[in-house]
């Protein structure tokens, strides 16, 4: 009995690993994530704002409330990024295979490295001596 319980997930993983659709989704998701995240950080586009002092969540960007501690935007940036990248990834799966194949796979590691200097620059407030 117990030996058969792991079979469906193993089969699903195998089929995902051989799926051209999943490859397209994952490639575009990987390229879009650093770009969208950097835009979210620089433009301050959180999907929601979390106020840890009061455990309150506001939709979109909200300022810190007086006497209620700081506001946190990182959760909201992460949510915006993952949803945005997933939408782009799904849209890419509808493109013709020839077009998708023309996306250089090296972008999946070049783009994340390329946004690092931009993010370092965006944090310039902290680089003071």
């Amino acid at each position, binding site marked *: 009995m117990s030996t058969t319980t792991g079979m469906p997930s193993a089969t699903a993983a195998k089929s*995902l*690993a051989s799926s051209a659709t999943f490859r397209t989704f994952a490639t575009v998701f990987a390229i879009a994530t650093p770009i969208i995240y950097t835009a979210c950080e620089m433009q301050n586009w959180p999907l929601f704002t979390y106020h840890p002092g009061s455990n309150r969540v506001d939709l979109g960007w909200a300022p810190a409330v007086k006497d209620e501690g700081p506001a*946190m935007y990182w959760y909201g940036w992460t949510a915006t*990024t993952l949803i945005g990248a997933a939408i782009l990834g799904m849209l890419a799966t509808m493109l013709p295979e020839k077009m998708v194949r023309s996306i250089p796979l090296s972008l999946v*590691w070049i783009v*994340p*490295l390329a946004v690092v200097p931009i993010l370092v620059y965006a*944090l310039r407030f902290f680089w003071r001596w």
Partner: protein
Amino acid sequence: MGIIPDFLLDYISVSTYWTILFIAHALLAVALLGALSHQAMSVLMPVRAGAASGGFVTRFRAVHGASYAAAICVLWIVTFIFGAWIYTKYRIYVRIPIEQAGYWKTQGVFELKEHLVTIGLGLLPIYWYFWKNARNPEYDSPRKWLTVTLAAMCWYSFLVGHVVNNVRGFGS
């Protein structure tokens, strides 16, 4: 402050709760760092097939990288979730004193850590796919450099987390 399941507080103090959570986060990070370091070394300095078993470095890089991929994805996600959970506590009880003490660069490098771990999260699906198709030569180069990129992100995040804990962690 933060998200704490109420029933837990019948058995442990708030301080113990956050300490357990932080130690779990740190241990998961150690496991992730070790796995990614082995895998990155295995793609940067692969051991030739049939080579005689060498010393520590040879054995360190002689791992079967593909068998690490799923575990690394799970560890990255779980470590991320634990870190995101602790972050609520950090924002009030760690970051504010760090800012009051004027440790701006410490805060800045931690902010960059937040950014890198989220970006790393987005790289996991294609990373997993590349390793599941490790026999496909088309993916050799992107798989190698993506693995090295993730390992670099993990090392940076680990070291920064360690430094911030030294600045204001346990006992502060």
